Structures are given as C-alpha cells and as structure tokens.
C-alpha cells in the first residue's frame, strides 16, 4: 500500500476537508510545532519560521477541498513548509557566492571533563551547525536534513550546483574542525589507556 496515512490522521484530514474546525485545530496542535522546527532548522529564524508554518496551515484550510495528499499528511505539510522556506529564501535574493565570515575558531579544546561526557559530541556538532554563517547553513540543512539533491536546490534557488558544492564543503570543513579534538588519535589513545595520573 502506498499510503502511510495513519487512520487517525486520515480521519482528521477528511473532517478538515468537510470544513470541521475542531479537526483543523487538532491537526494544528499535532504538526504546527513540527513545521516551525523544520523551517527554523533551515533558516535559523524562529519568527519567520512561525510565519511560514502558519502560511502552510492557512493554505491547508483555504484549499482543503482540492488538496489531494499522496503520501502522509505529515510529509505533505513538511514538504509544503520547506517549499515556502525555499521561496522565502529566493525572495530575499541572497548572493550565495559572496564570501561569508566563518565563526572565528569558536570551538574550545575540550578538557577531560567534557571528554568524559561523550554524548556531548552530538551537542558540539549541533552548536557548530547553528553557528554556521547564514547561507552556508541554509544550503547545509537543505542537503542534510531535507535530503534535497544539489540539482533541485540549485533549480529552486536559481543558483549553480557549483555554489552549492562550495557551501557544503565549507560547512563540512567547519563541522570537522568542531569535532576534531574529540576524534583525534592522541586523545583517543590517552582516553583508552586510562592514563589519568
């Protein structure tokens, strides 16, 4: 079966289609925050992310009678908010080729304490992503989180795939630098040997 619709989700959506505001509110409670988080992960601007997520819900209501959802409603909404985000980025006519300043060596060398908290490594990466320069971060999150092919991003934003590759390389280089101290052989050896003195 090609449908991933959960029954509950499908029921709610069918009710919305017939004009049921309570069901609409239930879908809002279910997915609004999810959409804001999705847009904010790309944009790093939570106010704008809220506007875009509301636009998606506004159109869901306005076009409820004609919307046909092929996969899951959740996937449809996510795709909608990503498209809105892309349109918004495009409308700002950013110059993706212009050099941006990378954060200045923002990643402190970890001390023994932080090394012991190994789960922090994920934290470190997430902070590093959040600290990427705007355009670099946009491209990175679209590629990595939305899994969009470079070609598609290029077409949507009217930029070249070369520019996207360059921004991706910059992003990965910055993230590598962030994890560097945690994935270094010297430190690993020290850590594994239990040589604490």
């Amino acid at each position, binding site marked *: 079966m090609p449908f991933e619709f959960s029954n509950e989700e499908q029921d709610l959506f069918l009710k919305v289609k017939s004009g049921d505001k309570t069901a609409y*509110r239930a879908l*809002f*409670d279910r997915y*609004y*925050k999810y959409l*804001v*988080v999705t847009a*904010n*992960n790309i944009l*790093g601007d*939570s106010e704008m*992310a*809220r506007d875009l997520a*509301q636009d998606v*819900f*506004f*159109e869901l*209501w*306005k*076009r409820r*009678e*004609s919307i046909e959802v092929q996969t899951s409603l959740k996937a449809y909404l996510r795709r909608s908010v990503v498209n809105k985000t892309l349109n918004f980025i495009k409308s700002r006519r950013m110059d993706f080729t212009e050099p941006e300043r990378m954060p200045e060596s923002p990643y402190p060398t970890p001390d023994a304490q932080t090394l012991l908290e190994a789960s922090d*490594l*994920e934290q470190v*990466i*997430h902070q*590093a*992503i*959040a600290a990427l320069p705007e355009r670099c971060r946009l491209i*990175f*999150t679209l*590629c*990595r*989180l939305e899994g969009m092919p*470079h070609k598609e991003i290029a*077409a949507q934003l009217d930029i070249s795939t070369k520019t996207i*590759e360059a921004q*991706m*390389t910059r992003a*990965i*280089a910055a*993230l*590598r630098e*962030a*994890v*560097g101290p*945690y*994935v*270094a*052989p010297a430190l690993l050896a020290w850590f594994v040997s239990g040589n604490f003195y």
Partner: protein
Amino acid sequence: MNEELYISLLQKQLSDTLSPAEQSTLEDWLEQSADNQLIAKQVAQAWQLSGGFSQDVDLDADADFERLERRIAEAEATPAAKVVTMKPKRNWLAIAAAIALLVAAPLVLRKFFSSPEMGQFATTDSPALHPVELADGSKVWLNAHSSLQFFTKNEGDKREIKLTGEAFFEVAKNPERPFVVTTELGQVTVLGTSFNVRNPAGSTSLEVNVSTGKVKVQPKGSSEHLLLLPNETGIFDQNKNSLVKTGGVANNTAAWHTEKLVFDNTPLEEVLHQLSLLHGVTLTIENQAVARCPLTVVFEKQGLEATLETIQTLLGAELVKVSEKDYRIRGGRCG
C-alpha cells in the same frame, strides 16, 4: 594544500553522489597518510551526527492559532474571490460514444474519462488578495472582474490556462511544457517568466505586458505573432486587425498587482486618473491650474492616503477627504 577538495569528495561519498573517478582519487588520497584517514573519520563523524540536528523553538501555539483564525476569518469575509472546483466536463454525447465503444476499444474509453479536472477561480469587484498557486508552482494574480480556468494536475505536454479579464502571471520555468494562456482573442505562450495579460470580457483588445523573460503573443486564427521582451507591451486590436509592439519604457500596466507606480514628468491629472483606477475612488482637482503640473515620483506598496499625502506635499495643496471613496485636491501650485 588541497584539503577542501578532499572534504568535498568525502561529503559526496557520504551522500552517495561520488563518481567512480572521484572514488579512486579519494582512495589514493586516503592511502597517502594516517592524517588523511583521520580527516575522513572526523568528517564521517560530523556528517553522521549532523543528521539529527534540530533546534527547539519557543512558541505560543494558542496565540499563533488565534492569529491564524483571524487571518482565515478575514479571507473568508472578503467577498471578492471565490474558489470553485469544477467537475470534469462529461457531456452525455461523450458518455454515449464511450459506451458504444465499450467493448471494442477500452483505450479510447479511458481517454474520455481521464480528461484532467480544471480548477476555476473568479473575482468580482476587487482583485484577488492572494495568488492562485498552480500545480507546477506558477502563480497567477487575478484582477477584479476576471476569471480563470486552470490545470490542477502537473501533467500533459502543455500547461493550459483560460483567462477572461486581466491577470498577472509568474510562470515556473519548464522549457519542456510551454505555459499557454488562451483568451477570447488569442494565445500567449511562454516557457517561464512573468507578465500581465489583459483581455476583458467582450473587449476587442488583448494587451500583454512583460516583466521578465520572453513571451509570444498570437491572435486567434492568425499565423502572425509577436515576441515580447521585458517592459515591452504587445497590443492586438480586433477592430483594426492590428498587432503592434510598444515599449522599452516602464509603465504602470501591472501596477494593480505590483502596487508600484512609476511617474516620470507625468501630468497630475494623469497621475490621479491612474490612482483612481487602481484604488476604485474618485479624485478631483479643484484648482485647474495644477492639473498639468508634471510629477516625477515612485509609489511602492503605499496605501492610497499615504500616496495622496505625498502629492499634497509636492504641490503644497490641501487634501480633502469627502468620503472613503471621494477625495479632492484643493489649491496648490506646480513644483
């Protein structure tokens, strides 16, 4: 040092877009040193952990929902626009023919019933507040007293639209599937661009103004056509059977949509005429001495009152508001 190149290759490898040639370049580099292998390890680690990236946001869902409800209430209170989805046309003759062919030609039958559903959108006294978004991502802003029939599925070798009245189009690029706007008097074909089409019901002229890209205009039943470039306007006059191109000069044809009016040494009376059309109001010049005063000014996304106040200042005149729909310019002098 060409570390960046290899980081780029490592990234491609992680996202499964590495070509065989790149693959061997990367393998050679990895064999060169333990340092290189460490870089690869760090990149892989960073890549893997970045997939779970998510930032929490603080939000007040109740307040946001209220905002959304107000917006919906406003949109629904606007009587200007009405969306109707039309059922596919199935006239009895076609069905009868299909039934007749039922046994002999199932393929033909399918053809009859799979005619794409057309969407329909119409406005009455004021322009639509929001664009109609088409299945291919194109957008159409419909002016007052206009109607539109459009495709709702992204398939077929053409993107076909029917228009009565006036609309501004922003067409998603797709050279393989031309976007064709048919009006009473002719056809406008594009591949991806933005432009304004005006052919009011019952009118004998079709007017097309191009904002970006390249547009082809072809009157109905004619082999003659025009190619228009940005800022050019093509006008077909049915009475004179003439097809002419004007332009090179920015004009205010699409102002109803763009909310941008450009005036370059334009007489006040002409400026007020355009404003009155755009906002549906009556604007009267009391002092005929200022009627020919030339104005050079750009108004962008300004409300009517702000615009009139600017004019009042430019002329040193007084603005009198008789009612919501009736303003008078009193006194003043040129420059």
